[in-house]
């Protein structure tokens, strides 16, 4: 009887340990490609309410994204940065994170000159916008380009 009790305890402990995986399974998806699919130590996500980091065992979250950087870390020093325009991130109870972005690109692939030009154009459009629709569109463009500019400068 003693043997059976301790065996039960060992099995239960093993089950608990297996419940929380060591790494987060991250998928960074856009409508036309899968940019990231693998296990990482952590991932930082630009939520519209603020940036947040996801480690294994993170509480389930659905976050709307704002233009910013998704950073996947395979170790403290080894980080890959991607710029995302917007979308949603789903962190599930089993330590998987699905980041569905409308547009996503490696920060290293952003063209600095094109970003600067786009930013200036967006500023001009925002100032000269005639009606509410145009103003809203220009505002969105401005947000995206400002975030891109910050991402490129930080790289």
């Amino acid at each position, binding site marked *: 009887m003693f043997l059976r009790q301790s065996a039960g305890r060992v099995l239960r402990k093993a089950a608990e340990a297996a419940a929380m995986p060591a790494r987060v399974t991250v*998928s960074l*998806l*856009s*409508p*036309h*490609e*899968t940019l990231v*699919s693998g296990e990482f130590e952590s991932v930082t996500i630009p*939520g*519209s*309410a*603020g940036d*947040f980091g996801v480690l294994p065992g993170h*509480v*389930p*979250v*659905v*976050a*709307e994204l*704002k233009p910013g950087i998704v950073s996947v870390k395979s170790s403290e020093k080894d980080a890959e940065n991607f710029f995302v325009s917007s*979308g*949603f991130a*789903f962190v599930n*109870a089993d330590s998987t994170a*699905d980041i*569905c972005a*409308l547009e996503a690109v490696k920060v290293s692939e952003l063209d600095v000159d094109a970003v600067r030009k786009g930013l200036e154009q967006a500023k001009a459009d925002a100032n000269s916008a005639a009606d509410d629709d145009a103003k809203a569109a220009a505002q969105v463009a401005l947000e995206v380009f400002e975030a891109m500019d910050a991402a490129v400068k930080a790289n």
Partner: protein
Amino acid sequence: KVMNSLAQRVTTARALAASGMPARGMAVSAKALKIRIKSVNSIQRITKTMKMVAASKLKGFQSKMEASRPLVGAINKVQNKFIEFNNAEDAAPAATEGTPAGELLVAMTSDRGLCGAVNSSIVKAVRNDVRENNKTNFGIVTVGDKGRSAIGRLFPDNMRLQVTEAGKKPPTFLQASLLAEQINGIEASSASMYYNVFKSAIAYEYEKAELPSRALFVDNGAKFAAEYELEYENDDVILADLYEFALSAKLFNGLLETATCEQSARMAAMDGASKNCGELIGKLTTQMNRARQAAITTELCEIVAGAEAIAQ
């Protein structure tokens, strides 16, 4: 225009070859058959080209569609959670005020024809769904000219929106979002999408998928928030935004699958047409040779008979 004359020529050539004899009862001349063979040959060249074009387009469409599947899968996972909550026994009651707005049927078809049964299967499905369930309060959205003309003839008073040129190039998420915006503007209590799902280059399957409604997400928001923390900037906006994103993703997937199925079906149809042309050419060639040999035999007989007559 090329399509119509092509279809007509194939039908005419087939009918003529089947009848064998011309209307007047004269022997079919080798020359007439030669002209017919030339015509069927040119048709075969066209169908072979169309098959190659469809095959190369299929490659591009298929790779785009497969690349979109992970994102669509992730969104479907979330949408299924909402559907699960909605179908549960203690689901929040739907807010119904006044007369229900009716349902929306979105039919995904192609603009151009000569693509096998892709469009007829969708039109039939819509027609059967309406007739078998005696639906009266419904609106129809057609993507593709083939659907517009066929369904427009069946239910002319229910047409709400017609979309064209969706399958020319691989649909983008932006296009799907624009379509979602338009569909969102139509008052409806529920919506379903009728489309063909791509299984392989030679197989596709018809499917009817439920399109998310705003109510599905908003009404079940409380239950969802119990399982997932919602991080958002403005209250309640996140559920509406999530709904719009999910609708766009579902339409995006539908558009891509439809376009891919169109190309694969056209490739198969043109392959069949080329084979048929080949068989027809074979039959006509045999007939032509027989006619030619008969003419030679007749001439020989005349010469021999003439020679005999002179020899007498």
